[in-house]
């Protein structure tokens, strides 16, 4: 049997536990077993730091690490950042009921787990078994670390034939390698062979993943549901259900699955990001907002920290603000917008030197102000965006289009027009041209709306001077644009009625009034213009009767 003192002697070991006593007791035990290079960490944040700084052979982490990240998150982050070699071991120490929660997924599973409570002897036995297995498969792990996956597969297949007692660990490795090489059929068979003998949940999930990748998404989903029935805490099954549902064009159901996963295990940053993305696309902004907020919070001191989480969070908040009606709780709205601006502030501090991110930040900030109806601050943000854009050596087409949009939103039509023209002149491809044309159309509508507003104001001032003929001319011109609103149309009607009443009956004007009423359509009783509408309508009907129509 393996000599544990020799095996541990040259290993660099990291022990992670938030409780002092548990930490020192585990350290004492591992020292007694022969380890000489032991580091400790008291929480997930410190653990991740250490893992980024040093190359560990063995990580022994408690699952529960207090308020921050848990052991699973530390593991996921280490794997995500490629800080754990295949030859390294990540062992999760769990309470007896947590095993279901940490059981192996495809990518982010611990190599082994140890169940609490354990005595020194129990730890010794367990470590001996784990290290002995690891030693047997060492050549395979070395091949994987060297990037020789074909060689690793050949070795693993040969070993599987010769040593059936290693079927579980070898199936794990082989399944992963086949999936990585997109050899789904072979991966499926490998899992299948194990399942014929052992009801292993992760192999069942692996099988489902293979089925999906081979095109049979329905069977994959059914298999995952079945696995979940037996192992309701197996979150990765929900993750895969979501991925599959999304590929089947069912984003709402995909979101539901991810929400279930997040309810079970809320600390995984990547999962929160995925939920945020899907919910945002589904238009479920409160869920998106909460997911990105968690992604920001959980990722703040991790390698997952990315500006895009902040930007997407602000986007989701902005959508919520834009969609909220007058009845919404104003305190809640204020809290919401405060959070958004706090995120923007954090972006400014943490990514100050990165112009691309700063540009996106200014654009997003401007849109948020617009959503709050604060045009002054919106314009200021657009100005800042303009300054950053000028600093950018090679602004992308997308950035310039965003700038144009910001100009339009802040009524800077001339600048918008110039930028669009500039883009057109620079010679862009067909899809870009379509985007430019769409923006141009928006811009034109804006200009027209502005123009009708000017005409309307002119009409009002003529009307106040009782120059009804000129008023009618101005309002008619404004009403000629199909974008003209109810108020403009009512103004035009009122001017025409006043003209008739002060001069003479004019059938042509009455017919115009009739057309305008038709354009207005129905005005509801609750509408503030209802009274005026009713009054004008009655006068119009009276005049119509008087004219004998």
């Amino acid at each position, binding site marked *: 049997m393996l000599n544990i003192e020799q095996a541990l002697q040259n290993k660099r070991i990291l022990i992670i536990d938030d409780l002092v006593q548990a930490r020192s007791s585990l350290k004492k035990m591992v020292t007694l077993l022969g380890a000489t290079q032991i580091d400790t960490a008291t929480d997930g944040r410190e653990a991740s730091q250490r893992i980024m700084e040093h190359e560990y052979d063995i990580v022994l982490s408690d699952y529960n690490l207090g308020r921050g990240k848990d052991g699973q998150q530390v593991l996921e982050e280490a794997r995500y950042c490629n800080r754990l070699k295949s030859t390294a071991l990540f062992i999760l120490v769990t309470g007896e*009921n947590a095993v279901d929660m940490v*059981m192996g997924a495809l990518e982010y599973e611990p190599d082994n787990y140890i169940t609490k*409570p354990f005595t020194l*002897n*129990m730890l010794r*036995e367990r470590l001996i078994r784990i290290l002995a297995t690891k030693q047997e498969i060492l050549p395979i792990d070395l091949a994987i670390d060297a990037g020789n996956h074909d060689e690793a597969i050949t070795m693993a297949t040969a070993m599987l034939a010769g040593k059936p007692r290693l079927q579980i660990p070898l199936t794990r490795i082989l399944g992963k390698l086949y999936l990585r090489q997109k050899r789904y059929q072979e991966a499926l068979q490998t899992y299948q062979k194990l399942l014929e003998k*052992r009801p*292993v*949940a992760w192999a069942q999930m692996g099988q489902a993943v293979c089925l999906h990748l081979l095109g049979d998404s329905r069977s994959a989903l059914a298999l995952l549901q079945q696995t979940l029935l037996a*192992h309701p805490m197996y979150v990765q099954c929900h993750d895969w259900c979501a991925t599959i549902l999304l590929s089947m064009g069912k984003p709402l159901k995909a979101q539901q699955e991810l929400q279930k996963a997040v309810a079970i295990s809320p600390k995984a940053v990547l999962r929160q990001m995925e939920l945020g993305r899907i919910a945002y696309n589904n238009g479920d902004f409160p869920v998106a907002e909460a997911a990105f907020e968690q992604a920001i919070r959980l990722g703040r001191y991790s390698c997952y920290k990315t500006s895009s989480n902040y930007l997407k969070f602000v986007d989701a908040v902005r959508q919520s603000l834009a969609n909220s009606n007058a009845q919404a709780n104003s305190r809640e709205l204020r809290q919401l917008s405060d959070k958004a601006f706090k995120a923007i502030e954090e972006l400014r501090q943490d990514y100050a030197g990165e112009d691309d991110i700063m540009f996106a930040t200014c654009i997003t900030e401007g849109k948020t102000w617009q959503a709050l109806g604060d045009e002054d601050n919106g314009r200021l943000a657009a100005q800042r965006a303009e300054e950053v854009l000028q600093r950018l050596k090679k602004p992308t087409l997308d950035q310039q289009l965003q700038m144009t949009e910001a100009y339009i939103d802040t009524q800077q039509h001339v600048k918008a027009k110039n930028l669009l023209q500039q883009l057109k002149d620079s010679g862009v491809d067909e899809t870009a041209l379509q985007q430019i044309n769409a923006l141009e159309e928006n811009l034109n509508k804006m200009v027209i709306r502005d123009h009708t507003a000017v005409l309307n104001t002119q009409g009002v001032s003529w009307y106040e001077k009782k120059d009804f003929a000129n008023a009618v001319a101005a309002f008619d011109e404004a009403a000629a644009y199909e974008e003209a609103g109810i108020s403009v149309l009512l103004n035009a009607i009122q001017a025409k009625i006043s003209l008739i009443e002060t001069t003479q009956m004019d059938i042509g004007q009455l017919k115009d009034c009739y057309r305008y009423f038709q354009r207005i359509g129905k005005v509801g009783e609750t509408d503030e213009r209802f009274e005026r509408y009713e009054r004008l309508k009655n006068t119009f009907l009276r005049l119509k009767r008087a004219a004998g129509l």
Partner: protein
Amino acid sequence: MKFEQLVAAVIHDLKNQLQALLDYEQEALARIPKRYHSHLRPILQRTTRLKNDTMQMMSLFSMEQNQQFPMDDAWPFDTVTDAIEATSLQFPTLQFENRIDENSQGFYNENLLQLALVTLITNSAQAGASEVTISADDQAGLTLTVEDNGHGFDPAILKREKNTTKNEGTGLGLYFVQLIAERHGNDQQRGRVEYGNRPQGGAFVSIYLP
């Protein structure tokens, strides 16, 4: 759902407290002169017993809730060693023999199996045994056999068992072991328990896991 969570939390804390108590007692034992150990040992024994009982209660509760007990590669030699470690303090005069090959391998939930073994060892001790032998056979599935030199099963129990599939009267400990065995298995087969008296005296219990 809340009720179950509350029960689980209480039991969890109970177990943690007992574990801490055991650690303190062990440490005290290490520091106190040998001649006083006889005073401390009964406390340690009872605490161990309480801890085993709590673990049993927790497992029963989880079974009642129909929770899954994840299974994995496991080594009977280790599991038996752990069970002996958990009971040897309580029964200091009991002689153990672990006849299992170190490389013998199984597929089961280690915690549950250890609890089953602790229960069987306790039964043996209470039946007046002075020796307990544990062996394993992993040729087809895994069979773990616990034998002792105690007074054996009451013939009435053995007879009644032949006439009924119910477990009443076979002793609650044995019933618990049966529950654990039945938790293991695959699509074709479930685990089961066989027991009886040895020709040379004493009892045997075999746990068969497919």
